[in-house]
């Protein structure tokens, strides 16, 4: 089934120079396995196609059930030259949580809520 990430994960984002970076965290191990499979750099790049001009990098961290995602050239050159309201990229994580992925209906988070 199609599931938006906000139902099964949490996330925080920030900025460094012209990069927006996101930590995406599964609440549990079965969900982490799904995130690792379904949240690919290509899909993230497509989700941010209107604001990310560079490549998307992604590192899985099994030890903390997390994906580290970096959007290159995503802040109009950097926070202090950006014209956007979200010049610091702090809402980029919320944008990611709106992305939908294919996930099994029996994930723990989809049962408990």
């Amino acid at each position: 089934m199609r599931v938006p990430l906000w139902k099964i994960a949490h996330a925080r984002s920030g900025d460094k120079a012209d990069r927006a970076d996101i930590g995406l965290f599964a609440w549990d191990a079965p969900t982490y396995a799904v995130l690792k499979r379904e949240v690919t750099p290509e899909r993230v790049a497509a989700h941010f196609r209107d604001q990310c001009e560079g490549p998307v990098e992604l590192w899985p961290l099994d030890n903390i059930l997390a994906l580290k995602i970096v959007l290159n050239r995503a802040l109009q050159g950097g926070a202090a030259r950006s014209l956007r309201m979200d010049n610091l990229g702090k809402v980029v994580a919320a944008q990611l949580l709106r992305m939908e992925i294919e996930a099994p209906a029996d994930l723990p988070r989809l049962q408990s809520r």
Partner: protein
Amino acid sequence: MKSVRIGAGLGFYGDSWHPVRASIERGGVRYIASDHLSELTLAILQKDRQKDPSAGYARDGLPMLAELWPLAAKHGVKFILNAGGLNPQGAREAIARAFRDKGWKATIATVSGDSALERLDELRAAGEPLAHMDTGAGIDTVRDRMLFANAYLGAQPIVRALEQGADIVLTGRVADAALSLAPLVFELGWRWDDWDKLALGLTVGHLLECSGQGSGGNFGSAAEWAEIPDYAHLGYPIAEVGADATALLTKAPGTGGRVSFDTLRQQLLYEVHNPHAYVSPDVVLDMGTIKFDDQGGDRVRLTRASGAPRPPKLKIVGGYHDGWMGTGIIGFSWPQAYAKCEKAAQTISTLVAERGWPVEDTNVEYIGYNSLLGANADPTYRDQLNECFLRMTIRTQERKVADAYGRLFPWLGLSGPPYVGSMKGVQGAQELLGIWPTLVARELMESKVQVAVEKV
């Protein structure tokens, strides 16, 4: 086994120091590590210094110490803060003067020598191209517009200050986490080539450097943010670190916020690029082996950080003038709030085009609809909004144009679409800054670093 407790101070220039009181009073901390400098704060301080050569330091260091020092002295707590900004000596003089007036005693040290702005030509002559780290662009394109350029120093000079008996260490630019790593090395006697221990210390510093973000603030989540207790009294994070390079993350009893596996791992990855090579001046951290053990009750054990040898180069971050931003905001209520914002945007764009203003970029956002979520905003209710604000910003090289841009908007109140709000004055031109990250051989900077100590 020996251990030491470090508490988070500020997380940015302008952050609140009130939560630090609880960490000192009942958190058992020996040190407060306070970060006043975000990536571009030095640009603000540079403007201060241009107006007044004795300024150029973060102005919240002194009021923080003025309020907390009597309590800190009573509990034997030392402060390490990068509030020296571009002028650590100036910060020390201001603090020393205030302490003398109050009859307080302290040994205050400064760490300086991080500025590269006045040395750019010398550094290039020494073989450093100073090209942009990400784009590879040459520095000549921005050289004459550079407002500041400072190297991120490591923990070593701070340790030298502590060895000389400093109670308060004022630095300029240092790696944020070095503010915590330094007292750990000093107290626990770690060697500068014990990479795994340094990596644990760096991890601790990184978890503390954003104040409340390490203890439940800004907890990015769909609904769980509402379960964070008592934001009004949120306690800043505290780390108790053992000589064996294990740590306990917690916060002062009776404070709000939450220290848990979830809040800590959000901070662990915050503003990190490659998590397997998190580079600092003192060690390169691999976050891939770190283990968090959540014991409940706002207590989390941290173990197994892995370190690799420190890099041969230090990072410099410079900021350069990059034009001006003009801003206009106007709000409309139902009916057709969004449509009226759109019409206003078109009208403004027509006026700008007719005036022939040299505008390089225009950004149009609808506050209440997509100003934060951008293209990922959900359009379902766009045409039924109760109210909507138009925010338009431009980039231009002409300061006058940026100033004049905001003045176009009030006219819409009488001559544009109906039911308008937010006529609260006009925002003037704001300077835009480009960022210039680059690398420099560490010995070229470290040979000029100075540690000075003054007894007050």
